[in-house]
């Protein structure tokens, strides 16, 4: 079905050989090669429905781009299968690639030295888009991206933000039901980022385009994606809604207390609070850090205000960045999430 992604036990092994150093090593390399197999993606399974916007995140080297390369047909999986838009990507590549759009934030697909519109025209021919469809698409994109004013500028003279808008438009000229985005907001300023996100939302709303995006910027996910997949060491660690991730992995809670006067510090210090970490930020400000499983914020605050004269209370949840950082760095979180 168009716009649908099915991955079943998708696995990719790479074989690298150990190069020996020096002249002698170089000669030995010619005859004896020691190979090492590295599993980049390990039995990844998921299903994306038409019209979904899914964030795919993970630290560098986690297997994100290898997965995307298998889904786009660049790489053949070592094991497992992918069925995307009803095609087996690497096998039906030429027919399959007509039904997808791919945007690399780091790399343009436009011709560098010629005006943007010339690249668009050539892409129109490559994807066999009719003149009327081409015009409609361009008008639609222009409403959000305002690209028409750059159309006659050579790509090399565009700023990164302008180039990105043109690249987005280029990848959607043939109105594919599925769009892959590899770090679409990398290097962009705040305004350009907002613009790109707004455009992606609009395209998804209007055409029901399925989108899979990899990113390091979690605000992309918060803005765009209801669903999030986290991959590390080739395995999917989490697949679910962003809210679900928070519910499962949101561990710590911070309460900041502003005292009415320095004298109250004594009262706060002498409170007996079980397993609550007290941190003095300055003479009037304290931070209490505790585990959500053990205490509720309400109970902690009630205990504090009954004994101490408090001016303000601020409750902070752990940010999504903080949660993801914990997932990337600590292996134990895996069990915690399950």
């Amino acid at each position, binding site marked *: 079905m168009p716009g649908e992604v099915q991955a079943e036990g998708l696995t990719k092994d*790479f074989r690298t050989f150990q190069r020996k150093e020096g002249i002698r090593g170089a000669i030995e390399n010619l005859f004896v090669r020691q190979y090492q197999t590295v599993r980049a993606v390990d039995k990844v399974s998921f299903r994306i429905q038409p019209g979904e916007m899914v964030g795919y995140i993970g630290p560098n080297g986690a297997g994100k781009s290898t997965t995307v390369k298998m889904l786009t047909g660049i790489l053949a999986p070592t094991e497992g299968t992918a069925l995307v838009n009803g095609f087996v990507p690497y096998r039906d590549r*030429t027919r399959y690639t007509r039904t997808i759009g791919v945007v690399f934030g780091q790399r343009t697909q436009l011709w560098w030295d010629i005006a943007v519109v010339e690249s668009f025209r050539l892409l129109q*021919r490559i994807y066999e888009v009719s003149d009327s469809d081409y015009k409609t698409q361009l008008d639609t994109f222009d409403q959000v991206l305002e690209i028409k004013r750059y159309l006659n500028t050579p790509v090399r003279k565009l700023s990164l933000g302008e180039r990105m808008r043109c690249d987005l438009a280029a990848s959607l000229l043939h109105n594919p039901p599925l769009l892959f985005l590899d770090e679409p907001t990398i290097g962009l300023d705040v305004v350009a980022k907002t613009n790109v996100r707004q455009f992606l939302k609009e395209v998804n709303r209007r055409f029901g385009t399925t989108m899979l995006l990899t990113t390091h910027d979690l605000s992309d996910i918060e803005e765009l994606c209801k669903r999030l997949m986290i991959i590390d060491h080739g395995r999917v660690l989490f697949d679910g809604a962003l809210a679900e991730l928070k519910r499962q992995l949101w561990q710590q809670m911070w309460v900041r207390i502003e005292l009415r006067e320095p004298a109250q510090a004594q009262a706060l210090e002498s409170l007996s609070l079980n397993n609550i970490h007290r941190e003095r930020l300055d003479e009037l400000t304290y931070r209490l850090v505790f585990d959500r499983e053990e205490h509720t914020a309400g109970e902690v605050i009630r205990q504090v205000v009954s004994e101490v004269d408090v001016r303000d209370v601020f409750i902070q949840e752990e940010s999504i960045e903080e949660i993801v950082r914990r997932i990337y760095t600590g292996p134990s979180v895996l069990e915690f999430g399950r």
Partner: protein
Amino acid sequence: MRRYLSLLVEYFLQYAKVRLAYKGDFLISVFTTLVATGLGVVVVLLLFGRVPRLMDWGFYEILFLYGFGLIPMALFNVVSINLYYFGDRYIVQGNFDRILLRPIHSMFQILFEQFRLESAADAAVGVFVVAYAARHLGLDFGPLDWLVLAFAALCGFVIYVSIFLMLTTVSFWMEDRVGVMPPVYNMMAFGRYPLKIYNVFLQFFLSWIIPFGFATFYPAAHLLRRAEYRLYFPLLPVVALACAGLAVALWNRGVRNYSSTGS
């Protein structure tokens, strides 16, 4: 097929727009190409002007051979430029991924993403030299002969491109950058002289291993009405097609390997 032909035109126009954005650069390049090729012809004139016969080949026959050889070579030079950069620009730098994401055969894209249009000027020099030599030889060189010549040049062009495509596919398996292309490129010149001047081994090699002899010498000998090579000429399209088929098959294998290794 029709789609690919019209895409070829589109790709070429795209390239032409870039080139014409820098007119001065392009004109100078055409000029230097013409001078270099012209000097090559002058060297042949001087060299063989002093040695009137090479085995049983006369001066104007040598000149004819040389002139004909320029034509398929020029066509080859127009499209081959990307092949030299393939390993580095496409495989190592990863641009081949972008190629695989387009709904066109990857080989087509590699051949026609870049051209070297100024090399086409060499073909004009070649035609001029052939016409000049043919007149001095007193050959009755009519329109049909020119048609045969065009066909033979096209076959030669296919042979050249196919052989270099096969060498390019090495990059799919090995990232070592020490190219085998430059020595083979230099060997192309061997096919421009009567094969008889070489030893038996080299003759065989240039006919059946790397058939540069078929790209230039055999068709030129046929056009010179040399009866002793008449059996070779009909084989020309067969050799060209075989080379092309082998190149495509090898290329597809290379792409498959790329897909499984990602290197």
